[in-house]
């Protein structure tokens, strides 16, 4: 048994007050979960503490929450590990209890206001930077009185990117389920339904097993950094679900689905490739990887999306084939206005984007950042001395185009015989 301090971001709408922090002392084995800690606090200290849970075994997906800023399941995070993480972040940022009225978590809201040592005073004295007071939660909560030399409290917050109903309970309907419905999450086969079940080759379903593992907990949605900037982004859970049907051999509307997801300005090309959802997912679904598969399929389908997503991908791939390293100005031009038989074919959005990049180039020329022809004029960039070797790699890879999915294949042990006896690769294209 060990003692832990868990600091919970609480909110009761009926009180009329804003959210606040409350710290609970709990006593449990380090191998038990953060959810166990919360339930103990609810049981012994405050029965009004609201948390959603059911199976306690990472199957039902009810207890999504942020622990030290990291989205995940409360029941799948050991409290001992959460304590280590809290201690590590406290040690790294150096904010001690005496300096901040409440200790700091990785991404806890009050973290934004903490400046190490005397930095805060200096910032105020110098007057060079103005500090904004009055954030969502002020750091001077009187319920929390940590003493020096104590272990850092474990910071627990409701999931992000969705409204909070009460304490750790979020509204899954207004964001998560609405977005899931947005991708038509059911099979759309054509023709007469078979008399009995659909029969497919087992191999043809392997590719979508990863996206089928989703338990709809919302942890990926909570962690999504694109959604933070663009709440309309369809998001990781719904797009992973979309791939589950795009990759299903029984579905007959693959092309329609891909057009829809690629052409939506908040669709597959709005994902900023930050990997947050991969680390948040308790089931290894890796939603971002599924979004990349959707982009690949959209490309194979030849979809010219108005977001320049496909053009950007093709431009990048072709430049490296031609030059070996990146020609940045050519990438910009080709992303917006792909050349075709020596002529540029920009659309209206492309023209706007290119005009918008002129001030950036002018600033770059002024400071010397871009003061050379090869940086300014698309295509002047040199190629590698042995670019033919790079081209040979392109020929080899385009012939095979293999995808090694480690979720499906797993990693071989180091003592495995390199005889290629492993299962065949999932071949794409």
């Amino acid at each position: 048994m060990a003692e832990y301090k868990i600091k919970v971001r609480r909110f009761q709408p009926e009180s009329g007050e804003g959210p606040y922090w409350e710290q609970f002392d709990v006593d449990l084995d380090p191998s038990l979960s953060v959810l166990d800690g919360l339930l103990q606090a609810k049981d012994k200290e405050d029965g009004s503490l609201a948390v959603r849970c059911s199976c306690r075994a990472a199957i039902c997906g009810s207890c999504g929450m942020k622990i030290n800023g990291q989205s995940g399941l409360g029941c799948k995070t050991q409290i001992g590990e959460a304590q280590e993480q809290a201690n590590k972040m406290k040690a790294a940022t150096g904010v001690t209890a005496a300096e901040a009225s409440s200790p700091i978590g990785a991404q806890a809201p009050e973290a934004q206001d903490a400046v190490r040592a005397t930095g805060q005073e200096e910032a105020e004295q110098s007057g060079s930077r103005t500090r904004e007071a009055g954030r969502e939660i002020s750091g001077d909560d009187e319920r929390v009185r940590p003493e020096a030399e104590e272990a850092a409290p474990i910071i627990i917050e409701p999931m992000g990117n969705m409204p909070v109903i009460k304490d750790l309970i979020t509204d899954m309907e207004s964001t998560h389920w609405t977005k899931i419905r947005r991708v038509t999450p059911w099979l759309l086969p054509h023709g007469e339904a078979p008399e009995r079940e659909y029969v497919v080759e087992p191999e043809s379903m392997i590719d979508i097993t990863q996206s089928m593992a989703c338990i709809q907990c919302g942890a990926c949605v909570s962690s999504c950094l694109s959604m933070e900037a663009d709440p309309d982004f369809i998001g990781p859970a719904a797009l992973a679900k979309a791939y589950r049907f795009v990759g299903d051999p029984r579905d007959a509307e693959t092309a329609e689905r891909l057009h829809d997801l690629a052409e939506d300005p908040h669709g597959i090309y709005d994902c900023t490739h930050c990997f947050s959802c991969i680390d948040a997912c308790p089931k290894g679904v890796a939603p971002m990887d599924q979004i990349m598969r959707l982009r690949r399929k959209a490309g194979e389908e030849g979809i010219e999306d108005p977001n320049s997503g496909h053009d950007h991908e093709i431009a990048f791939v072709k430049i490296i084939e031609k030059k070996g390293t990146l020609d940045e100005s050519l990438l910009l031009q080709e992303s917006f206005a792909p050349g075709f038989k020596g002529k540029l074919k920009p659309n209206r959005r492309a023209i706007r984007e290119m005009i918008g990049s002129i001030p950036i180039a002018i600033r770059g020329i002024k400071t010397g950042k871009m003061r050379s022809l090869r940086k300014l004029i698309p295509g002047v960039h040199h190629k590698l001395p042995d670019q033919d070797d790079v081209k040979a790699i392109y020929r080899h890879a385009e012939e095979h185009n293999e995808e090694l999915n480690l979720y499906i294949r797993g990693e071989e042990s180091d003592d495995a015989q390199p005889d290629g006896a492993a299962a065949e690769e999932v071949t794409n294209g």
Partner: protein
Amino acid sequence: MAENIKVAYWPGCVSRGFTPELHGSMALVAQKLGIELVELDRANCCGAGVIAEHNQELADTLNARTFALAQQTGLSMMNICSTCQGAQSECQQRLDADSAYRAHVNEALSGQGLSYEKAGDGGWTNKNFLWLLVEDYGLDRLKEQVVRPLSGLRVGPFYGCYIVRPKERLGYAEHPDRDIYLEKVIEALGGQIVEYDGARKCCGFPVITMSRETSLRQAGTHVGDAIDAGADCLVTPCPLCHLNLDMQQPEAAKVVNRDLGLAVLHLPQLVGLALGAEPKELGMGKHIASTRWVEERLTSGVAA
């Protein structure tokens, strides 16, 4: 401990493109630290995740070529870009996981006399300058080299997604502190760490051509949060983050509708300042967001 470090050095594309000050400052700082760089000037782009999105085997083979070129020198590899680190680690993970796949990829390289070999424990590695500095060079040794402690300089770390996630791929099992190395380096150089919300978030760069507003809102929000937390500057080990945080900063300011104006330093520049290099030598004049305030902080009484 005081042994010389010599690495096969992959500078990446952007450090020789729109952030030339990174390439220059790395060369200068390596010399001051006594790290010998053998530049891989025939190596190719890592694909930055975009080529893997198009054709995974192509990305894996292109990076296997870079790894093989590094292995030919008999040295471990160093990069100076979070995105190179992440994209290359992804390919290396797949190559290392499956000997049959590795053999298939190496087949494409055989005509060039190249082959990527999986290294055993403690063998060949590919590390960002940040990781190398902490794990191989050592913070104590770094501290000894400091001639101008950055005291009084308030620095916000900005990691770049590709170097902090996914943890399982990026060696966090063996090196669990890799997501607090920037804080450790800032401290070793005598600076003050500024904690703010965006340190491990996304700069938005990957979608700058596809979803400009999403992209610039991310960059502008993080820069703004760092300013509100009292930062004098940000420091990043990723030139792609630098493009969005610095080069695009005036555009990001319009999207988030507030004044910004925060210097964003490349990691070698911050190290270089503490080692006594002049801002001009480190190419700080090439930045879009002025670094003058950083220079003033360092030369004023505060830094003494």
